[in-house]
């Protein structure tokens, strides 16, 4: 397991390094000794039963959750209590949420330009051009002047992806991006994510969409009980799972 990881990180510098990271909620040990290195352009899918800590793990990467022990280094910056560092890292790492979390009082276009204008200090004109470019990319440009409440779930999630992209992040985190969607809308969101993958975006995706994992992931991680139990390339992961709990989990969701 470890040899595979080092072999993979050879060619390029890692963008996210997590070393011996622990997290507790009160007395409850949610994440136990997490070690994970993600190199630029790598795409990782994390799966596991609910409560296994997979969402918490990626929320630690942009400090929506605080870790208590160990190290997280993103883009060369170590996550500490320093607010400036945290804000810097958050601009470099995009996040897509299960429930989209668009800003309901702003139009789609304003949702997309808010970050660039206020955080990156991009001129409004330029921010709008970038926004329209990404709205085209997620095939939703004609909805730019509408409000989030007027869009379907799938459309909203595509807007949320575009909103993250407008910040020109170096990596994207996806927290169960399709699990709040009606079945017929899952594909349109996955398609956008697949095209994002083709463009070489570094992605960490918490998802149970095994088809997506098979087609775009470099690595699939299986988490249970707050630990990374197994990681492998998708082919070996699905065809030849090593760990007993992985086998059980896969048999439950793939049947």
């Amino acid at each position, binding site marked *: 397991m470890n040899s595979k990881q080092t072999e993979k990180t050879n060619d390029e510098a890692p963008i996210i390094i997590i070393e011996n990271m622990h997290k507790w909620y009160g007395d409850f040990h949610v994440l136990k000794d997490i070690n994970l290195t993600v190199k630029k352009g790598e795409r990782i899918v994390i799966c596991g039963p609910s409560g296994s800590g997979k969402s918490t793990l990626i929320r630690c990467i942009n400090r929506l959750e605080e870790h208590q022990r160990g190290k997280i280094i993103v883009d060369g910056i170590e996550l500490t209590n320093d*607010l400036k560092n945290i804000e810097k890292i958050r*601009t470099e790492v995009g*996040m897509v*949420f299960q429930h989209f*979390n668009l*800003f309901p009082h702003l139009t789609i276009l304003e949702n997309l330009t808010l970050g660039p204008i206020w*955080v990156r200090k991009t001129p409004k004109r330029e921010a709008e051009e970038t926004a329209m470019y990404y709205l085209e990319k997620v095939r939703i440009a004609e909805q730019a002047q509408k409000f989030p409440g007027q869009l379907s779930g799938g459309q909203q999630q595509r807007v949320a992806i575009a909103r993250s992209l407008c910040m020109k992040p170096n990596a994207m985190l996806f927290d169960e991006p399709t699990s709040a969607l009606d079945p017929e809308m899952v594909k349109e969101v996955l398609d956008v994510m697949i095209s994002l993958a083709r463009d070489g975006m570094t992605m960490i995706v918490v998802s149970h969409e095994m088809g997506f994992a098979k087609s775009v992931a470099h690595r699939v991680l299986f988490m249970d009980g707050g630990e990374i139990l197994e990681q492998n390339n998708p082919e070996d992961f699905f065809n030849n799972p090593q760990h007993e709990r992985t086998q059980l989990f896969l048999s439950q969701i793939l049947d």
Partner: protein
Amino acid sequence: MEKSLPKHTAENLRPPLTNIGIIGWMKANLFNGWFNSALTLLVTYMLWLLVPPLISWAFINSSWLPSGDQCQAGGGACWSVVTANIRFIIFGFYPHELQWRPLVAMIILIALLFYSQNRSHWRKSLFYAWTLGLFVMGVLLRGGVLGFRGVESNLWGGLPLTLLLSVFGLTAAYPVGVLLALGRQSKLPIIKSFSVVYIELIRGVPLISLLFMSSVVFPLFLPEGLVINKILRAQIAIILFTAAYIAEVVRGGLQGVGKGQYEAADSLGLNYFQTMRLIILPQALKIVIPPSVSILISAFKDTSLVVIIALYDLLKTTQTTLSDPKWMGYSAEAYIFVALIYFVCCFAMSNYSRRLERELDTSL
């Protein structure tokens, strides 16, 4: 599938006649069930008993001339009490020959409020218009410059005073309340406990006691010779009082904004102030429009409590009029008139709030 549906019949069918039009409406709203039918008949009977005498009292048999001579004879309403004393009721002790000045000031104020209603006018120019308007209103009321004769503020009274206290009281209280609400949610213990103590302390005492403190107790602590204008002190008491209530309402709104909104703002790298200003407050304040307007309306009416520190607001000037032996018996008419003024203001506020809610609704 489509063939089997008898499409034309479904389209051409109309609802039964008794379900539409006036008959349908009456059936649905006035006579659905025996209990509601009985109620409808009872209410109609009461209205028939009450409305005609009221109309004849208020309009047909009433007297309107300022002299008020026919009031005893007519038997109806004596509106003369209002028409004869209108200038005192509206302007109080403001010098008679200068009363055009507060009148113009009120017109400017109402025009500015009216212009500000439209959200598309909320630009920088509006801010300048208000600044200029406030300056002009100040000059008009106070005088002493530009050749206007000076009028001491203890002569101000009536409607201009009520509007002054409420418009500035409410506009100043709102931002203070928002700051207190944010303070109460703050992670910094000093700010948080200050806000909590302030809010609970102020909400725990009646407005009257605050007004007393501001007019009687507060001056005791001031150095000899320093006098702060009484109206200003009442104004500050009203602001501090209303702000505490606004703060609790706004806090409710802040809790109504989902955690996901904070997380989304965080994940874009927005800082605290940007998050609050751009994401959280716009949503929170929209949620709390109805309760805040309730507070504003009741604060507006509470400005009449300044009588207890001997300020002559609209209600007090009316009472003073009624203490004149000539008009003593006509309090109903005078109070109806004042009630109408209060009602128009409050109704305008609640109407505007409903319009604002509609305009800000982005769900459909």
